[in-house]
Each structure stands twice: as structure tokens, then as C-alpha cells.
């Protein structure tokens, strides 16, 4: 993959003589010091990052952290004081107004926090605004606008006015407007910040679904770390105009760079950060028609597990528990008889919060790929260990199964 957007050492200083602030920053003076001595406000200092094509890059920070300034520099709404912002090979930070306009028309669009829909235009005209600006003829404009509205589930409202729609719907129009020109890069400035929590959750899920088909390069601004973790392929945490940490959701949650990040991480919803893959073990299946019940029991004892999956060739056939095998006594037993064919499964990228129900069944969860091939096993304890933030992602060793076959998972 290639970097679609490269941001290199970007600074933004608000005030009359910004260069002075830059030299002072170089000398290592702090933002506050510069402000009190010169009256210049440092909005963003030394931001550098690359965003790969098709990636969602989330910038998370509290108000005043410079995140809105940063995103507005990416499409030139705010000109940076110094640095480079490269979209493909065009430098947004150093180009003529005409070039900038062309880049905005062809490559990069924006979704705004308070929707910023034009109240005097219909939903379709709002969605088609970028096309109108580009000079697309009315018929095609309408078609493409309605298609974009269809992507966000609003095609039926094309002829309404924005004021007739709810907040969530208005932001869908905002999103459709951003998508209608088929840009490569979509900037989203706290797009769900003004929505109710429930609607926000819904919109986040929809954005994820939409992104799977569209594969846009998205720069997403938020003040909500949960949102950042849910959406971001990569996340930058911003404070006082600087990046504190850049990494994947898992990296940030498991290794906060400093106390500031750690404080945020402390109250996030871990169930939405980690996936089944993060907590799964190697499957170590027993093979149907090949391994015996004794083989299975031996292997469970070795691996310290209560149950193992049975595979038939590549496919998952069922699950056998130590209790069932032990309870059957000593006679050699076919695995197929002891096997339970109702077992919990999950995708590797399923989030932990989706596994709660499966985990409470007491059986390990089979992690399968799209061909129903077993790629891992998640012990219920591992799910809850990860949720509670215990450091080891590996499952706690369950109690060794005793003679009566009483096992711990049932209590989980």
C-alpha cells in the first residue's frame, strides 16, 4: 500500500508574526511561554503522519488540542504556517488557490460537526453540491446525488429540505455530500459529535459497513476515545497541538505512551477494542475418525484445557469436553458420540463485546474463517480477562480437570 496522504512537520501558529513562534519553538520554548511573551498561539506543532490508502486515521483529542485546526489544514481551509501536506504529489500547503480548488473538487471532501447543510437547498441539491461546483450537468448531478444518498439510506428523502430531517439523517446527508463527488480522501471533523449516543453508535457501525465497500481514505476527528478505537485503523492522540501517541487501537490500549493516554484508556470500552483474534489460542483440534477419546483427553491435560474442537478435514465438526469424555468411563469411545455439535463460533475480527453471550455458554469459542475453517479458540476466561484489563492476553490456566469432571467454565 502507498501513503495517500503524507503530512510532514506541519506547524500552525495563529497571530501576526508566526515565524517568531517557530524559532522559539525550535529553541524549545513551550506553547504557554510563547503565548505569554508574544501573544502568538501555537495551534499545531510538528505534526507528521502518513495515511495509507483505504485507511481510517483517527485523530483524537480534547477541545483545544488542535485537532480541528489540523484537519482544516489538510484541505487548506486553514493554511499551515510551515510544513508539507502531500496528497499524491500535490502539496496542499504550498499551492496556488486554483490548484487548491481543483484538489478540493477532485480529491478531498469534508463532513462537518454541525452538518453545515445548506438550508435553502433540497437534500439532493445538498448532496450534489460538490458536483454542481464542478459543473456536472443537472441530470448526472441528480443521479449521482441520489446514488450517494442511497448509500447512506436516504434516497427517499431526496426532495426534502434539511430542516425536515432529524440530526442523524442530516449528518447522513452531510456524508452523502462528501461521497457524491467520489473523492479519494474524506475528512470528518467530529461528524457524530452532535448526535445522540444511540444514533452515534448506529452511525459508527454504518460508517464501518460503508467503508468496507468504499475503501476511502478517511481522516476522522473525534474527542471520544471509544469512537476512535472502534473506527480507527490507526489512531493519533493529540494534546496541546502535538501528537502524544500514534498507533492501532490495540497498541494504544495495551501500551499507553504516557499518563495522559493512560487516563483516557482507563475508562474505554475494551469490549469494542479487542477482537476475537487478540485473545484466541491456537486451535489444537482433534481429528474426527483419527484421534480417540483418550487422545483428546491426553491433549486436554497437556494443554490445560477443558474442551477441544473436533475437525473433520478442514471443517469444524463439533466440540468435546473433558467432562463428557471422562464421564463415559474407561471404555474406548468414538469422538463422534461424545461430541457436541452445537458450539459457539465467532469471526476473527468480531469484537469482544459480541462474544459475551458465546463466552457465557462455558464452552470455548471457535474462531473460524469464511470457509468455516478453525483458526483459533477463545477460552471464555480470556474474554473476561481482556475486558478487565489484566495484562496477559493469554487465558488463565483453568483448574486441572479432576476425576469427577467438575470444571470451572460452568461458573464463568
Amino acid at each position, binding site marked *: 500500500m502507498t501513503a495517500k496522504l503524507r503530512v510532514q512537520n506541519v506547524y500552525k501558529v495563529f497571530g501576526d508574526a508566526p515565524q517568531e513562534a517557530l524559532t522559539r519553538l525550535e529553541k524549545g520554548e513551550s506553547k504557554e511561554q510563547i503565548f505569554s511573551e508574544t501573544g502568538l498561539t501555537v495551534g499545531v506543532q510538528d505534526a507528521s503522519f502518513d495515511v495509507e490508502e483505504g485507511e481510517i486515521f483517527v485523530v483524537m483529542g480534547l477541545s483545544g488540542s488542535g485537532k480541528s485546526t489540523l484537519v482544516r489544514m489538510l484541505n487548506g481551509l486553514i493554511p499551515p504556517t510551515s510544513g508539507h501536506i502531500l496528497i499524491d504529489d500535490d502539496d496542499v500547503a504550498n499551492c496556488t488557490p486554483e490548484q487548491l480548488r481543483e484538489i478540493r473538487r477532485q480529491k478531498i471532501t469534508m463532513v462537518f460537526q454541525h452538518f*453545515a447543510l*445548506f438550508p*435553502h437547498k433540497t437534500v439532493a441539491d445538498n448532496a450534489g453540491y460538490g458536483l454542481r461546483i464542478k459543473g456536472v450537468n443537472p441530470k448526472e448531478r441528480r443521479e449521482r446525488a441520489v446514488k450517494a444518498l442511497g448509500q447512506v439510506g436516504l434516497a427517499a428523502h431526496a426532495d426534502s429540505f434539511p*430542516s425536515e430531517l432529524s440530526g442523524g439523517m442530516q449528518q447522513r446527508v452531510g456524508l452523502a455530500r462528501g461521497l457524491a463527488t467520489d473523492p479519494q480522501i474524506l475528512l470528518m471533523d467530529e461528524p457524530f459529535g452532535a448526535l445522540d449516543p444511540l444514533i452515534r453508535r448506529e452511525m459508527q457501525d454504518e460508517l464501518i459497513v460503508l467503508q468496507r465497500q468504499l475503501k476511502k481514505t478517511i481522516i476522522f476527528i473525534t474527542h471520544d476515545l471509544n469512537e476512535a478505537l472502534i473506527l480507527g485503523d490507526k489512531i493519533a492522540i493529540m494534546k496541546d497541538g502535538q501528537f502524544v501517541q500514534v498507533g492501532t487501537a490495540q497498541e494504544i490500549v495495551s501500551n499507553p505512551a504516557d499518563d495522559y493516554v493512560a487516563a483516557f484508556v482507563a475508562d474505554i470500552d475494551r469490549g469494542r477494542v479487542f477482537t476475537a483474534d487478540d485473545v484466541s489460542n491456537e486451535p489444537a483440534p482433534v481429528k474426527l475418525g483419527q484421534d480417540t477419546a483418550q487422545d483428546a483427553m491426553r491433549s486436554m491435560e497437556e494443554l490445560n484445557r477443558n474442551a477441544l474442537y473436533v475437525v473433520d478435514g478442514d471443517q469444524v465438526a463439533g466440540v468435546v469436553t473433558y467432562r463428557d469424555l471422562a464421564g463415559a468411563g474407561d471404555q474406548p469411545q468414538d469422538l463422534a458420540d461424545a461430541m457436541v455439535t452445537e458450539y459457539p463460533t465467532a469471526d476473527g475480527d468480531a469484537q469482544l463485546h459480541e462474544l459475551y453471550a458465546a463466552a457465557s455458554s462455558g464452552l470455548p469459542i471457535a474462531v473460524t474463517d469464511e470457509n468455516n475453517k478453525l483458526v483459533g479458540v477463545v477460552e471464555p476466561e480470556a474474554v473476561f480477562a481482556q475486558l478487565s484489563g489484566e495484562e496477559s492476553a493469554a487465558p488463565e490456566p483453568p483448574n486441572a480437570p479432576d476425576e469427577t469432571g467438575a470444571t470451572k467454565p460452568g461458573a464463568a
Partner: protein
Amino acid sequence: MSPADLLTIPFDDWVNFLVRDILVPNFRPFFRAIQVPITGVLNALDAFFAFVPMLITTAVFALLAWRYVGRGMAIFTVVGFFFIDMIELWPETMTTLSMIITSVLFCTVIGVPIGILVARGDRAWKIVRPILDVMQTVPSFVYLVPIVMLFGVGMAPGIIATIIFALPPIIRLTNLGIRNVRGDLIEAAEAFGSTTWQMLWEVQFPLALRTIMAGLNQTLMLALSMVVIAALIGAGGLGLVVNTGLGRLDVGGATAGGVGIVILAIVLDRITQGLGEDNGVATMSLRQTFLSLFRRGSSTVGETKKAG
């Protein structure tokens, strides 16, 4: 003891010198030329209203009043216009109407672009604002004399005086309307690559239209209030009727002219206000507004509180 003991300034002589010895001899052709478009528009309108029968004009105004204000205003328009006709002031009223429309038209053509221009830059606004203050505070009698010297007497100079008097509100309110367009909408328009013109036409102007219409209404009212004063320098119409009555101490004649002006003022004010509020629904494009003039019935007007 006062400063005047030490030094007196012959300010009046300076102004006299400026107007009489510089402007009048050197720029008279220029000022005459300014009148040409005004006279053209005025004569066309005057001829038009003289040609259209009184009943048809009344019907059109009544329909507009009905469409944009309500039934009560339509009835008022009919009764009022019939009254004007029956006190035998219809031709004078139409002359006044032509003058008003001409003044407002020129005020719009001059004022809206200036308003847009000053909305774009604080420096321009800093220059224009004191000029507008002066235009609004200098008593109109003060500039009647130089206007007569530069333009002569007649209808056109009367309209020029009216334009000077009535221009400020539309500039101010256009400026205000454009400046009050929400910042995030401007940002959105910019983020999609709008040019300055596209921004103006697609976003700023339509959203400022309601405020601009309020300015138009104010300008119209000021123009009406200048009718009598403009008649002093030879503009005809109802103002002349009032002045004549005044000169002859003919209370009845002056009152008749005054009543005519008031009726015309009420009708024009309510209709333009209704127009402005119709736009205020913020749903109509300029084209739709225009079309709606011809589409009756299911309008958003309904029960307008300001109906006369």
C-alpha cells in the same frame, strides 16, 4: 472668549467655491449623463402606469397582496386604490409609484453590489460605513440645493435626491445578511472547491436574501417619505399635490395628497414585507420565488400576523 475670536473659518465659502466654481462648470455634463438612465426608466414606468387601466393595476396589486399577505390586505388594497381614484388623485399616485419604483430599482442595483462588496472586507466596510452615516444624518434639504445646481430641477433630480436618502438601508442590510451567513456553511462551500462567485450565488446570496429583502423594504419606505421633499425640486406626483395644498393653505388638498401617500405606503410595505418573509422560509431559490408569483393557493403565506 471663544476660538472664534482668534480665527473664523469661512466654511460656507469653501463649499460654495467647491460646488459653484469647481463642480458645476466642470462636471455638469457628467451629472447630466447620470440622469439619462434614471429618466429613461422613469419615463417608461410612468408611461406604462398611465397606459394600464386603473382597474387592472388595482387587480394586480390586490392579487399580490392576497398572495403574499392575506385576504384582508387584498381588500384594503382594493378599497384604498378605489378611494384614491375617487378623490381624483389616481394619475398623481401612478407618477409617485413610478418614481418610487425607479428609486428603489436604482437603490437595489447600486446598493446590493456595494453591500456584498463591503461584506467581503472589513476595510471596505470601514470606508463605506461613515459615508452611510453621513447620508442618513444630513438633512435632505441640505443636499437639495447642490442637486438642483448640478442636475437642474425636475423628476430625475428628485429621484437622485431620493436615491441618496434611501440607499443606506439596503447597503447596510445586504452587508449584514452576507456577514451573518453561518461560518460553517461558508467553510463547507469552500471545502467543496467553490469559487468566490459560486460561493456568493449558491450560498451567501440566497441565505442573505431575507435580510436583503428587509433592507429593500426599508429603502422603499424611505423613498416614500422623500416624495414630498423631492416635489420641492420639481418632482411631480402626490408630493406636488401636498406642496400645492401647503402653498395655498388648502388643508383639504394637502390631506388628500397625504392620504394617497399613506395608502400607497401601506400597500407597498405589506407586500414587500410579505415577499421577504416568504423567502424567509429559507426553502425557496430565487427562481422558485419568481415562479411562486404565478402559483397561487397552497402557499406558505396562510395567516400572516402582519396583515394590515
